């Protein structure tokens, strides 16, 4: 290959961490504000809701109900209370599912990239099979047989996320694995496990962080979508996705029942999306590293 002289540029000071760098961007700031706001609503909401999540309050689809701020929904429940209850499950399920996907995906991606050859082929082919199911489809097929339980939703969302994360992590790990410090670690007798987790992994963290964020955004959307299709563990659960489905028909009489959860889901996903974009913007610079790399 070519033995170009390496550019003599280097930095004297260490750049701050990825997240801190991203925070300097306006879009990340907006994203953090939006996400914090919506996460707060989702987590604190149930404690400040004026009515119960399935409590009958008044005539269905009425806007002007005394004691309520935004009226009642298709089933005579308080719209505001349903809204305040409706984010928690989505958020918690999405976080757990994403964590499972990240752990499995990262491990498989790193292993495939480090071992290469036959193992790489087998791992990636197997993941390809899972990948050929769109995420919604995989969840639906499983739900169709076992019914919608939270554990099942977490598992299917987590598992369907795994190959997507594994692909990305493998992609950025392959560049790391080929670098000499990996050979150097092997030459001094580091175990395979240590090479993967303490040499390769720390060098793909920015890709990982970006991917984690992206996958969380999509998992929130996916879990809400399943609810929108009517697949929640309890048929009348307070859930933003389900709320939109339930109140869609009466959109003209009681718009809040649709608009509130729609806005909430939109802002939450946009918020995490903006953070992810900020992270990927600054990590592009970091991953490329010095000019010589």
């Amino acid at each position: 290959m070519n033995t170009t002289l390496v550019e003599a540029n280097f930095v004297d000071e260490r750049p701050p961490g990825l997240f801190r760098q991203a925070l300097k961007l306006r879009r990340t700031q907006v994203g953090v504000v939006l996400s914090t706001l919506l996460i707060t609503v989702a987590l604190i909401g149930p404690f400040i809701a004026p009515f119960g999540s399935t409590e009958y309050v008044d005539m269905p689809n009425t806007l002007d109900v005394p004691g309520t701020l935004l009226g009642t929904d298709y089933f005579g429940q308080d719209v505001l209370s349903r809204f305040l209850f409706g984010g928690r499950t989505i958020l918690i399920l999405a976080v757990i599912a994403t964590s499972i996907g990240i752990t499995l995906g990262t491990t498989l991606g790193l292993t495939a990239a480090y071992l290469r050859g036959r193992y790489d082929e087998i791992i990636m082919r197997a993941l390809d099979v899972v990948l050929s199911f769109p995420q919604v489809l995989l969840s639906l097929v499983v739900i169709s047989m076992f019914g919608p339980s939270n554990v099942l939703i977490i598992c299917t969302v987590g598992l369907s996320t795994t190959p997507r994360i594994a692909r990305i992590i493998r992609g950025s790990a392959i560049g790391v694995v080929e670098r000499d410090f990996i050979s150097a670690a092997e030459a001094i007798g580091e175990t395979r496990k240590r090479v993967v987790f303490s040499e390769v992994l720390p060098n793909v963290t920015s890709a990982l962080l970006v991917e984690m964020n992206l996958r969380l955004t999509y998992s929130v959307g996916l879990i809400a979508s399943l609810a929108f299709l009517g697949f929640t563990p309890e048929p009348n659960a307070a859930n933003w996705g389900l709320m939109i489905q339930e109140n869609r028909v009466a959109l003209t009489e009681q718009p809040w029942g649709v608009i509130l959860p729609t806005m909430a889901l939109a802002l939450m996903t946009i918020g995490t999306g903006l953070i992810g974009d900020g992270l990927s913007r600054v990590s592009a610079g970091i991953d490329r590293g010095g000019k010589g790399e």
Partner: protein
Amino acid sequence: MKTSILKFIVKRILLGVMTLFIVSLLIFAVTQALPSDPAEAILGREATPEALAALRAEYGLDKPLVSQYTHWLGGVITGDLGTSYATMTPVSEYISPRVSASFFLLLIAALGSIPLSIVIGANAALRRDGKFDTSSSLISLILAAMPEFVVGTILTVIFSTTIWQVLPAVTYLEVGAPPWSDIKGLALPVLTLLIAVTPYVSRVMRAAMVEVLESDYVEMARLKGMNERTVLWRHAMPNAVGPAFQVIALNLAYLAGGVIIVERLYNFPGIGSALADAVRSRDLPVIQYLALIIAGVYVITNLLADIGTVLVTPRLRTRLS
């Protein structure tokens, strides 16, 4: 060199068939082989043992798993897909019109989004960090983050109900009628799918173009005195479409998933609505077949993308021989 490409294509198709085979195994395993009892799933927990046994016998669920699978796979290959549990009509008869309606929807969305993405991506890359680039990146970012049904609901609020009432909120389409018989009703589903896919593909197109435009050979083309149009179309574009193929394929497959939600949202009578209904009524043969079709879309688009990439990349073509 020609024969080596042919050999590659055949090999790649065989691999696709292999993948489909494994996919079918997986579908079968989840729906019929796992310790979930399809009979119980259909009849509910309160069903009497006699009723369950009768149902199992009727659908052959009491036979050994291997023979159940070979029977099913044989049916898939010969086109005899059995009878839908819920509608009692032959599955093929029930599904065929819905498949063509959905494919029509997907086709318009794909034909719209691919050129749109290329134009947006290439323009953003050409004037990097300019006004168009920053605004298109922000808009695509926002649109890409939201789930389809949220986008669709917002569109409904804007175009069909609260703000303007210019487009129907649902598609009025008879099953079996040609999809273009309700053009207005197609507008929102197509728009939603476009919004779901275009941002992602255009971002990838932009990234691929930026990389190519920063390359040594593009700089060299400029230093040779080539005009910008030649630089863009002759020197940059052919090198950017290779990587873009893969992403387009991935997103077409993603469309196949998104279609489930979008059809449900607009009551569009396609495979998505059929799948959601089938899941609700536990209509096993329909679920299995639809799952296989949707997964098949991914396998086939991926196959085409792989072949396309090789055909447009001289280096890969040579490596084959």
